[in-house]
């Protein structure tokens, strides 16, 4: 069926909940309201308020309770309404979700998914347009996933829910309803930890993820560029990245977040450590500037544009 990413994620949740009654949803307004983006539309009706739980407005306890639930036989999928509100749950995610298996030496584990809409471009108020995936990518014990379209969103979410460890699942709001494509019903899992060659090419490797994939693909038109869709941001698929860069000798990383200490830095550093002898020129990063994401009037100037990516391609191809 043709569907957008909201519908694909909804379908993934529905199927997983039907398949495995340990899967429960919790979050603010996920129940009767179906979530502010309608991700969980109809799920409370289908599975009851015991499995689709509206919580009080408490991001820390919401994630913290999900940790306790995960330790005791459930597979919670917690929603943080916008990524800008996940910071209150950082302590729970980092001090606890990431470490429960290790602290208890395997006695307890934390098969938890924290889903959250992320990214800029929807012209919403402050803290509604964050893309701080790198905060989580530096936490050992946490996986981070960001789909770039409906089909992948469903498959990755299935994998995330089935993963025995905590996964942060980042949904690019800008793409929620932008892309419609065929999304099959039933099982298919897109594995975690594997990147995808979104477009083959030989002269330059472009690495992108989440909402930037769409722009990277547009920018690549007319270039002999290979585009890698990272999909899992942590642990990221270094092999696919390095193989491509070794072949092309040129790398451009496209990152929605501010430049400094974003995930792009780790990708560039990995390339600089492990593929440097194959490089023809610098590893270029196209990223937002090092400022807080501005409100609607300026956000288009903040986000990496197709033009900026093209400019980077033109530059690197000079080498």
């Amino acid at each position: 069926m043709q569907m957008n990413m909201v519908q694909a994620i909804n379908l993934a949740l529905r199927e997983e909940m039907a398949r495995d009654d340990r899967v429960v949803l919790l979050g603010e307004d996920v129940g009767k309201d179906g979530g502010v983006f309608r991700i969980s539309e109809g799920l409370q009706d289908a599975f009851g308020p015991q499995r689709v739980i509206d919580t009080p407005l408490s991001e820390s306890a919401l994630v913290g309770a999900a940790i306790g639930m995960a330790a005791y036989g459930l597979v919670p999928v917690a929603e943080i309404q916008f990524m800008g509100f996940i910071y209150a749950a950082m302590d729970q995610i980092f001090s606890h979700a990431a470490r429960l298996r290790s602290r208890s030496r395997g006695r307890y584990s934390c098969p938890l998914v924290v889903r959250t809409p992320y990214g800029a471009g929807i012209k919403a108020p402050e803290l509604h347009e964050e893309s701080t995936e790198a905060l989580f990518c530096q936490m050992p014990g946490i996986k981070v996933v960001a789909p770039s379209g409906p089909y992948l969103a469903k498959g990755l979410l299935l994998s995330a829910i089935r993963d025995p460890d905590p996964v942060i699942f980042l949904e690019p709001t800008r793409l929620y309803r932008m892309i419609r494509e065929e999304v099959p019903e039933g099982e298919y899992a897109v594995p975690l930890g594997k990147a995808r060659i979104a477009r083959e090419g030989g002269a330059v490797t472009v690495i992108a993820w989440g909402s930037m994939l769409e722009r990277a693909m547009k920018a690549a038109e007319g270039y002999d560029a290979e585009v890698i869709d990272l999909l899992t941001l942590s642990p990221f698929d270094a092999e696919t990245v390095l193989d491509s860069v070794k072949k092309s000798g040129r790398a451009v990383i496209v990152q929605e977040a501010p430049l400094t200490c974003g995930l792009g830095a780790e990708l560039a550093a990995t390339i600089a450590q492990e593929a440097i002898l194959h490089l023809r020129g610098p590893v270029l990063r196209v990223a937002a500037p090092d400022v807080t994401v501005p409100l609607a009037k300026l956000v288009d100037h903040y986000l990496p544009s197709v033009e900026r990516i093209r400019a980077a391609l033109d530059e690197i191809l000079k080498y």
Partner: protein
Amino acid sequence: MRRANPRPPVDSRLSRAKLVSMAEYIIDSMTVKRIEVLDPRGNADEALLPPFPDEEIRRIYELLVLARAFDERALTLQREGRIGTYPSILGQEAAQVGSALAIGKEDRVFPSFREMGAQIALGYPIPLLFRYWAGDERGMRSPDDLDVFPICVSVGTHLPHAAGAALAAQLRGDRCAVVAYFGDGATSKGDFHEAFNMAGVFGLPVVFICQNNQWAISVPVERQTAAKTLARKAWAYGFEGVQVDGNDVFAVCRATGAALEKARGGGGPTFIECLTYRLADHTTADDASRYRPDAEVEEWRNRDPLLRLRLFMERKGLWSDADENEAWERARGTIDEAVREAESAPPPEPGEMFDFACANLSPRQQRQREELEVRQVRQV
């Protein structure tokens, strides 16, 4: 034996039955008061009548009208795509205007995102409010003679700032008080707790005002907390919580005034729960009919805060239909003017996103700004 340790000797099932015989006595007790002046039909016991001069009462009403006219227009502008997502204050005008009127120039105010009625009553320039909601952060720069913090979108996270501002006042001996506004949903946040606790421990000059509009998006207050009142939460921190009829502008104003006076005089914090109702959708992006019954909304429409003050004034002979029409006309005129001013402001330059990133840009930020500006020029 459980493992190497001596076996837990007590059969818990045994002990459970015999509690009655324990010595129990009461060591602590608390009560919560409710304060009201005007009833929904605009009646007030003569003995309780507020002593405002007639002219002031009319001006209070006009401010309520202005707040509502602002809200009306904001909703229209949103539908026309001229501002972004907007949270209506419909039904909460008395709780916002009434409390704000008690706030002095010297006081410090920390609003949440649904406090436009309070901002307007405080004298915050209405064009700036429109600009903010249109996505221009310059709208959040409070005029120099007004101490109103930027709108806080992250629910409840501004409460520690209010505590800190009050602590600063206390340490520096500034004779002022601090007011923080927030919703019923915010009472579930850790920051609410930590800030309230700190206010209690240090006896801070702060007044916490909860707009209990009974909904946090789709979550009714009964699912937000099992506490019978929100006001009682203050007792957990050793200070008083009171509930006020939040649709009664007189009660709100005077409860706030009393709490502020207490705060300024070193009497410590107060928590005021204004029990009111969100008559509109959560925001323009919401559809409240998905989760709440129309009957409940209708019931609260009857307790409209403007209506009751108007009925009161009419009964006292202070207000006529002509006054009403004029008040609305004046308010809409003010709003028209504000919209014009807001929309005629030149849009921000892209480089302005760097303007207040920090006091001094790093070399990298500097370069990023230059690159942005060069791109800009190229595109023009």
